[in-house]
């Protein structure tokens, strides 16, 4: 059982009205924004379950867009995020999907298109009390919360990848809290997710990218 801090009880400090539908939505979008390298030109939010039914009344739409603009849960600019996104030239849209019901009730899938034309899709879930997790990246099932410093490495499923990543980390004295590999099928694209209690040095990302089977490296720094 994860421990509960004083500030899990008296907190989070947040823009209302709902910890799961507003604060959680901000947190998911902010994580996704951090995962996406470079600038975002266009974003589409696909809402499922309770998110799809009640997003307007809970400000889930403004919260998601606010997170995409880099705001945290207590940032009062969230209320004006439509206008702020327009000012920044960020195109956005909200789509509901009430056909797919085999998902957590508070699920959103975020489709991002970068200024350079790159595309990424990430699915996040708001699990209650403002806590969230990322459950899918580009169609591959993953599972992490962003509460630790998190490295997400996209690579080909190839022998020795885990050893390579672990060596790069150990050479820089980064202690691994959790490490998991997710893949669709043998030999295809895989994601390795490394969570650490410490700050992960930027230079490590360059080193990881040197490997020919590594396609991309993303970092969420706590």
């Amino acid at each position, binding site marked *: 059982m994860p421990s509960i801090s*004083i500030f899990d*009880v*008296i*907190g989070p*400090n*947040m823009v*209302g*009205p709902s910890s799961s539908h507003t604060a959680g939505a901000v947190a998911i979008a902010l994580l996704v924004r951090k995962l996406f390298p470079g600038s975002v030109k266009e974003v589409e939010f696909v809402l499922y379950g309770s998110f799809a*039914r*009640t997003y307007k009344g809970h400000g889930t739409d403004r919260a998601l867009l606010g997170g995409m603009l880099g705001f945290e849960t207590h940032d009062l600019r969230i209320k004006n995020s439509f206008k702020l996104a327009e000012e920044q030239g960020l195109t956005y849209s909200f789509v509901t999907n009430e056909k797919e019901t085999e998902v957590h009730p508070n699920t959103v899938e975020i489709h991002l298109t970068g200024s350079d034309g790159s595309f990424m899709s990430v699915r996040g879930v708001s699990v209650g009390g403002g806590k969230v997790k990322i459950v899918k990246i580009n169609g591959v099932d993953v599972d992490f919360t962003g509460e630790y410093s998190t490295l997400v490495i996209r690579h080909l499923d190839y022998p020795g990848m885990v050893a390579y990543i672990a060596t790069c980390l150990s050479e820089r004295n980064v202690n691994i809290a959790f490490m998991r590999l997710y893949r669709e099928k043998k030999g295809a694209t895989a994601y390795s997710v490394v969570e650490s209690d410490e700050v992960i040095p930027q230079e490590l990302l360059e080193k990881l990218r040197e490997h020919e089977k590594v396609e991309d490296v993303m970092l969420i720094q706590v």
Partner: protein
Amino acid sequence: MDFISGQELLQLCEENSCRISDIMIQREISEYGASSEEIMERMKEAYRIMKEACHKPLDEPVPSIGGLIGGEAKKVRDRRRQGKSICGSMLSKAITYSLAVLEVNASMGLIVAAPTAGSSGVLPGLLLALEEEFSLDDEQIIDGLFTASAIGYLIMRNASVAGAQAGCQAEVGAASAMAAAAAAQIMGGTPQQCMDAASAALVNLLGLVCDPVAGLVECPCQSRNVIGASNALVCAEMSLAGIRQLIPFDQMVDTMMTVGRSIPFELRETALGGCAATEAACARTCQIFKN
């Protein structure tokens, strides 16, 4: 230093001759490696946000996103200022501030979830009223917030504070238990009196369902927060007067969860039953979703 029940918490208070708030701060230091200064700064910031949310809608009332609430706190304040309150100054202020925080919450303003956003008016409502009425200082109230967090932690750990899981008794009920214990400590109660006040608060709100109109955190959430604060006040009063509770806090937490599990799905934040299913609520829901 850690504890997983009210009984263990009371034992630690006794062994160390200290208050619940002191134990909770010690736990935070040992579990998270935070310094007492950091912890104090974060709680001060939380209380600053709470106070601001209590005051803001009194001068600048704004309608909620769903349009179901807005301006209620100002009405109660104005009536009190005219000398017409039938509740007396203390309770009238607690009502005013609890209403106010929910107005801020429902209009996308800044609040502190305590323990949830839907129950965020209870603690600030009661504690700011106490501070003003008894000319206390912020430090005394902040001590009370640590005591409240110990109660909230035990409910989160051993039951739930999610309306979707256990109904409003788990949200406003938990907030009310937290506020009752905080008020008891602030007004000089012993750790046992704090636990008794919290236990009584859970007894009184046991079985309360979560039935938000149109699924929004507006109605009946706002007036439920008021009942949470009022309930906390009377429970603290009883406990400080030396009234003991038959049922210990830990057993009330367990039974709250058992009752929560037997609350039907329609009455656990789905907006399918209770107040949300009344004719008046359905009519408003249709209006809201047409826009």
